[in-house]
């Protein structure tokens, strides 16, 4: 059995790659995809612990995280489309109406 820390290291690396993507990319859709990547990193950690601690609660929680991520992706993409309809751009650098 692979020690759990290996799976956790993979989860942490995935998470930090997602964080890096949110910081560096300027396309709103790609930022959204990096958020999904972070959620998946957390899912991997949950399932690794679920196997390590001989419990199914981790997998049940992953089920709910996936449902929440699907709902959030749908609404977030609706927001991005509405934003594009108003501003003609999805480059987050140019969406600065609230800057003072």
């Amino acid at each position, binding site marked *: 059995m692979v020690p759990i820390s290996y*799976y956790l290291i993979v989860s*942490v690396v995935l998470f930090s790659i997602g964080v*890096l993507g949110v*910081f560096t990319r300027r396309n709103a859709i790609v930022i959204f995809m990096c958020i999904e990547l972070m959620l998946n990193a957390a899912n991997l950690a949950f399932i690794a612990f679920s196997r390590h601690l001989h419990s199914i609660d981790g997998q049940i929680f992953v089920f*709910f995280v996936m449902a929440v991520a699907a*709902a959030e*992706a749908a609404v977030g993409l609706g927001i991005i489309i*509405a934003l594009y309809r108003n501003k003609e751009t*999805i*480059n987050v650098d140019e969406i600065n109406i609230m800057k003072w």
Partner: protein
Amino acid sequence: MILSALMVILRKNPVHSALFLVVTFFCLAGLYLLLNAEFIAAIQVIVYAGAIMVLFLFVIMLLNVEKEVAAPSGHGFQKFWALVLCVVVAVSLISIMTINVFTGEKGIYSPEMVNEVGNSEIIGRLLFTDFLLPFEITSILLLAAIIGAVILSKKKL
């Protein structure tokens, strides 16, 4: 999988990023299979790679994003400090994960016990008995998401 995740954030074309994310999801599903989570692996492929990423690709192609729209524009110092911060976060989290020994009270669902009944059956049994309330609340959440998505697509908000 780490490589495809890196390619998600490094490619300029957002369609390429989405396709690399699909590859990452498939690799994650394989990893879940290794962790005795067959139900979650199937759900990952069906929901994440099959529905959410298709939605992403629809939106990317609907908005007709140009290839170089995510090109960097002189934010070099910001990228450098973002890289430093992410390396610091990763190193600190990895050090936490490897130094500790994760012990805890072991539950009853050992992989051998789960494999003889079936992973999906045990998850279904738990979902409808112990976790019924979150299950029903999730259905309401999905209803709210549907209503929100429909309202956001109206011409006059």
